[in-house]
């Protein structure tokens, strides 16, 4: 387990549009994330989830507040915080193995060592036999596996994922959710995962942080056993979480008390 706690302190972030209107993407967000935690950031689209994640990655300047990782304030992107995007970010001009090796190459690891580690992670994501394929020869789901292998192989203790499975079909998404949980259980890296899908959050997270209009409105622990199959997700505790989240998203059915538990 890698010991780099994340501390987000009073972070605000606003953008000025070309038209001159100022949009507050994040308002006074404070959050502590312990090493090895799997946190899902949940909320409607445009309510600050991605902005918070990009701020964590160091890809987005803050208007005020600060973010520290292991006590040190972050300044820009770093190899300790790997990111998986919703877009297809596997480099199409590199074969699978070269892609997976890229993080270690950036850190100056010797070729033999990074090749061994790449082989290990390619196998861990179930892509045995595809090390020398071009990304164009793989399906969208397989390319996501490459992206996951790349970020794990880079050795980053903190993994940031911005709706990585958003563009995939239902079955592929479930496969990849299981893969991710499996890798997380084995490595216990810290994972911050942005999604707008309550079910996905219930399958993955130890903790669900709900964002609404750029503020943290709830922070729910999820104490369900893994694997979170449909029976686990039908337990009263899971339903209670779903109802609470729906209420925050403004989707609770009228006439019924939302927080039953």
């Amino acid at each position, binding site marked *: 387990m890698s010991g780099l706690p994340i501390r987000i302190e009073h972070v605000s972030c606003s953008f000025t549009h070309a038209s001159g209107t100022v949009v507050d993407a994040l308002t006074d967000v404070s959050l502590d994330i312990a090493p090895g935690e799997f946190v899902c950031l949940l909320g409607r689209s445009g309510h600050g989830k991605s902005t918070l994640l990009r701020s964590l*990655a*160091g*890809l987005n300047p803050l208007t005020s507040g600060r973010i520290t990782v292991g006590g040190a304030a972050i300044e*820009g*992107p*770093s*190899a300790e*915080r*790997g*990111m998986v*995007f919703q*877009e297809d*970010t596997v*480099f*199409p*001009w*590199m074969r699978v193995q070269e892609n997976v090796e*890229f*993080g270690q*190459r*950036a*850190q100056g690891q010797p070729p033999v060592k990074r090749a061994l580690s790449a082989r290990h992670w390619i196998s861990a994501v179930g892509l045995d036999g595809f090390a020398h394929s*071009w*990304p*164009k020869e793989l399906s969208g789901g397989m390319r996501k596996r490459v992206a996951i292998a*790349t*970020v794990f192989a*880079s050795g*980053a203790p903190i993994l*940031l994922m911005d709706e990585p499975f958003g563009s995939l079909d239902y079955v592929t998404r479930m496969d990849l959710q299981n893969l991710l949980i499996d890798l997380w259980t084995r490595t216990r890296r810290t994972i911050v995962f942005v999604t707008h899908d309550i079910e996905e959050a219930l399958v993955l997270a130890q903790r669900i942080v709900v964002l609404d209009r750029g503020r943290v409105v709830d922070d729910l622990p999820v104490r369900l056993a893994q694997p979170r199959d449909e029976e686990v997700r039908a337990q009263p505790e899971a339903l209670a979480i779903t109802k609470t989240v729906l209420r925050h998203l403004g989707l609770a059915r009228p006439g019924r008390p939302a927080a039953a538990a």
Partner: protein
Amino acid sequence: MGAWLRNNWISITTVFVLALAWEIGGHLAPTSPLREAPIVPPWEYVFGPALIGMSDYWKIQLFAPVPELGGARTYFGALLAMGYHSALTLFRVSAGLALGALIGVGLGLVISVSEVTRRMVATPLHIIRMCPLLAMIPLFQFWLGATNWSAICYVAYGVGVVYFVGTLNAVANMPRHYIETAQTLGASQLLIYWRVILPAIMPELFSSVFLTLGLAWSAVIGAEYVGVESGIGRMIIWAEFFSHTGRMVLVTIFIMLYSTLSWVVMRSIAMRILAWMPKAHGQINPLS
């Protein structure tokens, strides 16, 4: 070969019919008062008297007789003269292209580093692009003399501007998330340039390559028309002095052959370097 013939018989027939039409035209057109120069030279004239006449341009008393010094005209001398001047022109084109590509792409990548530098060059670059290339020949020859070096620099300038603009646009248009992914994997700026930005813009750069091939040939022939006293473009001017229409057609055919050949070579290089590219995915594929 059989399959190729079956797939392309329409194009082949068209070329054949055009060549035939030229031949018929050659025999129908009135001959000019100068008996040496038919207005539309038919093929047997181009590859007969015109071809052997090229030996007039062989000036070295070695390998073949020199007609200028009273020697006989020979086909071998003609081929030597064509080969010598072709080699000079090919050297100028390839050196100019290589130099222009290197400087254009390099400068484009350096300027792309920041928004400020990009804005700085935007307007001057636009003005330079609008300046007709051929108008610059006299100036280049005034600066550098009517030499090999001058022709190379002129070609390099002509194609360099295209590569420069192409690189700037390609970098500006490439998906940001590739760079961001590399950054979050801890890549240095240098590694990002070398392993992410350069390969990402390669498809667009190859569009510039195909664009500049034609441009480079025009530029070098232009430079040879106007001043440089050698090369295959100069041969046309020599032929024009005596209204040798057959020789003009012959040289033009050679130029066409060379530029087609350079295109084929570039295409096979592009196919190898861009092997990773998905076929037809919304993006313009320079290979198709």
